């Protein structure tokens, strides 16, 4: 049996961060140890106030070859951005 500890992906929310961000990965036998190791490996300089750990094989990622069909449709929809619309100066801030 393969006795390598599973790989965990580590997400950390900083003091003023709005969301958890992926910072890297590490090996640990279970989730509890993964959090303890993440504290040592990824928060030695006050980088975070909250840690999420997810086993790497539980993550499904989009495929790089889908980049075109996945994201190109949004490029032609400039009206989704507020700057598309001209608001007369007289109307004031909007």
């Amino acid at each position, binding site marked *: 049996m393969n006795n390598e500890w599973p790989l965990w992906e580590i997400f950390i929310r900083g003091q003023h961060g709005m969301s958890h961000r992926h910072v*890297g990965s590490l090996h640990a*036998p279970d989730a509890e140890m993964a959090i303890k190791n993440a504290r040592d490996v990824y928060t030695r300089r006050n980088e975070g106030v909250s840690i999420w750990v997810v086993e790497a094989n539980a993550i499904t990622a989009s495929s790089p070859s889908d980049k075109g069909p996945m994201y190109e449709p949004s490029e032609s929809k400039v009206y989704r951005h507020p700057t598309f619309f001209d608001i007369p100066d007289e109307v004031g801030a909007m």
Partner: protein
Amino acid sequence: MYAQMVKTAGTGLKSREEMTEQERNFQDKIDADIKIEPKDWMPDDYRKTLIRQIGQHAHSEIVGQLPEGNWITRAPTLERKAILLAKVQDEAGHGLYLYCAAETLGVSRDELTQMLLDGRMKYSSIFNYPTLNWADIGAVGWLVDGAAIMNQVPLQRTSYGPYARAMVRICKEESFHQRQGYDAIRKMAEGTPEQKRMAQDALNRFWFPSLMMFGPSDKDSVHSAQSMAWKIKINTNDELRQKFVDQTVPQAEYLGLTIPDPDLKWNEDRGHYDFSEPDWSEFFDVIKGNGPCNVDRLAARNKAWDDGQWVRDGLLAHARKKRARDLAAE
């Protein structure tokens, strides 16, 4: 540099005509500074070379803990001890970031570890030199970490995304390492005559081994062209070595210490220092395994791995049992 003489896989640099269409697209991405990510297509030789390079870099961080760890219990003050402890802990972290980057290329952590332990993969030649006294710890931070930074700063722009991101993190922390080393050796250089003599002695012993960290002279670096085209090597060995000398000489002058090279002098025309090459036969000998500490370093890593086996197995067995119990309870 923490990765020396990384053998580039493949047959050498190909012209565009010799490349397949896939290889051409790949090279175009690199030329346009678009990062290569783990799931992207990449040539096998790019993958192989990167595993060697990042692996060697990671091993260097891990083995690099040994010469410094040697002095944690004997640091001259509690403050120096706490600082050194934090520094050595950082090195462990750097090794882990890099192993993770290498693992995204399809090699497992255990395979990498095994290749270090049985000598199939190398680590930087510098860590095969001993740290004989406290002044050496200052010299290692100042010179060895200084040389490492020289190499690692440009690698933040390397073409492989996970490697570049690991380097960004490492560079942020590395600056603390160099500064604490300079601070420690400055204390000695400004101390009693005996302390100053120790600082000079440490510089004498670490100067040329530090210059060797950048690898052989460009004229003897057969692997550079392909690695530079792939942007996994950004500067040549000689460029980085020159930069390191130019930066370090004034720092030594400030300390009142003498660089142990009678031929060192400022060259007005070049705008750089001229300096003597290290003894390359010594370098190749150390790489081959005949340095002062090669045997000790590998023995220490093997012992740590073997002694830790029951802990790794025990924690994993516990995790499996707990998972089975949790599943049964559901």
